């Protein structure tokens, strides 16, 4: 069976050129870059080269790049490190209701420590009201954290405009650029961002490595205490092969960005049009203007069908996609992003994300468009909600309790 991978927002395969660049750093150039001797010195240059490659993708100075273990660490570090460093100045943080859990849960943890957090709402298209953002700023506001692009819908937020607001009110601005970096231009200088986080495994580098842009002169408390690595900003022996891989992936992403954008966008648009035109009762989740979404992301809800079962049927014919339904994520509530957009609960459970990569082909799109209608129809026929007469049973106090126990 041919396998079709369309879950690149969850993780990507390591690019061949990335793995090739990494390979010498496992068994031969295995030194600890902090060491004085040959084994250490022969890898120090590799790390600085990678730092330059990351800096180039983000348009910052090499010295402004800190290597980390993943995107989640970056979000934890940026937010907790700012809260700790600036708590003398204020205790208010502004973020959005549609951030990744690495931001949301971190903010919730800070709330327990006495910080006040504003979670900005989004409209039905998943977009922010910048006037609301501006109005939320008080003299206690120490941080604005808004993702560059949303992982579920692909929505791209107006980071440059938010950067202007942050500058105007002199509030620090962090952006989770995990999904944006490598797919669309991420220019931290132009956007007046103070901190931006990226993760390797979303752009063809391996899992277990990430990076943060930290604008020169930005005061931040440590998150990972310990050794003097990364100029005292991040303790722990450098993940040399991972860092080398991240560097090459950034270089490669920058080089191919225009080409890949056009290629992937064309496929995604075809898939989008095809699905919306061939299957009834399908809802697009995210901004209807495709220019305001990542070129690779399509999120649609197939009414009356729960997402996981759809994914499993997809899986049987080799298609890998993902779902905003509760059952797939380990928690028992459907996607908070769908919830924030006001998507009806059944539609939220049936939301399905196709996230493409430059390895996908037109034949794959054709195959999906050919198979999808029958799968959807089969599951609809199985659903007690399809062509239902009575109202849909909606809430369940029992389950909410379980959800709390899990969170």
């Amino acid at each position, binding site marked *: 069976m041919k396998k079709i991978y369309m879950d690149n927002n969850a993780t990507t395969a390591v690019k061949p050129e990335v793995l090739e660049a990494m390979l010498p750093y496992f068994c031969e150039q295995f030194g600890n870059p902090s060491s004085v001797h040959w084994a250490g010195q022969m890898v120090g240059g590799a790390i600085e080269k990678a730092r330059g490659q990351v800096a180039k993708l983000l348009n910052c100075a090499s010295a402004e790049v800190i290597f980390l273990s993943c995107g989640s660490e970056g979000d934890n570090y940026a937010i907790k490190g700012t809260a700790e460093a600036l708590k003398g100045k204020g205790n208010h943080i502004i973020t959005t209701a549609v951030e990744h859990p690495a931001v949301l849960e971190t903010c919730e943890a800070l709330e327990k420590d006495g910080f006040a957090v504003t979670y900005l709402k989004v409209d039905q298209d998943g977009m922010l009201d910048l006037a609301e953002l501006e109005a939320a700023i008080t003299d206690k506001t120490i941080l604005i954290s808004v993702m560059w692009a949303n992982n579920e819908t692909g929505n791209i937020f107006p980071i440059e405009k938010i950067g202007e607001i942050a500058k105007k009110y002199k509030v620090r601005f962090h952006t989770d650029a995990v999904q944006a970096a490598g797919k669309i231009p991420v220019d931290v200088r132009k956007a007046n961002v103070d901190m931006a986080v990226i993760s390797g495994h979303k752009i063809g580098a391996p899992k277990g490595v990430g990076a943060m842009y930290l604008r020169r002169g930005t005061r931040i408390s440590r998150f990972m205490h310990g050794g003097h690595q990364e100029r005292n900003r991040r303790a722990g022996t450098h993940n040399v092969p991972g860092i080398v891989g991240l560097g090459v992936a950034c270089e490669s992403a920058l080089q191919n960005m225009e080409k890949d954008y056009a290629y992937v966008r064309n496929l995604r648009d075809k898939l989008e049009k095809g699905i919306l035109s061939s299957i009834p009762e399908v809802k697009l989740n995210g901004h209807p203007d495709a220019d305001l979404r990542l070129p690779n992301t399509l999120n649609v809800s197939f009414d009356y069908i729960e997402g996981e079962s759809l994914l499993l049927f997809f899986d049987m014919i080799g298609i890998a996609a993902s779902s905003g339904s509760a*059952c797939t994520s380990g928690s028992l509530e459907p996607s908070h992003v769908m919830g924030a957009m006001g998507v009806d609960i059944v539609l939220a459970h049936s939301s399905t994300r196709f996230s493409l990569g430059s390895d996908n082909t037109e034949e794959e799109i054709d195959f999906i468009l050919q198979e999808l209608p029958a799968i959807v129809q089969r599951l609809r026929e199985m659903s007690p909600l399809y062509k239902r007469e009575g109202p849909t049973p909606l809430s369940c106090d029992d389950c909410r309790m379980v959800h709390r126990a899990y969170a």
Partner: protein
Amino acid sequence: MYTEKVMDHFSNPRNVGEIENASGVGEVGNASCGDIMRISLQVEDDVIQDVKFKTFGCGAAIATSSMVTELAIGKTIDEALILTNQAVAEALDGLPAAKMHCSNLAADALHEAIKNYKEQNH
């Protein structure tokens, strides 16, 4: 994640549908949790002659629904009433821990259908 038996029942679910003029119908679950199961019965002389299900839910929800119909057909309603969600899960060689609560309600739906049958007939 799922056992082979779950995948079998999920990919080839038995007894999908709705019995017309059913002897009893039961529905459990809700959209918040992402699982709704509806069971309809045809009962003669207190013996379950036919069962059909419709389910909105994840793989476990569909597989347990399918399995419960197989387990129930031919049983008396008293036998069917002692069928538990746990027994359904075991008949499928087990379910992932996270699925044991919300997605494993098929026996409950069956019991609701039997209750509904009893209310109509006694």
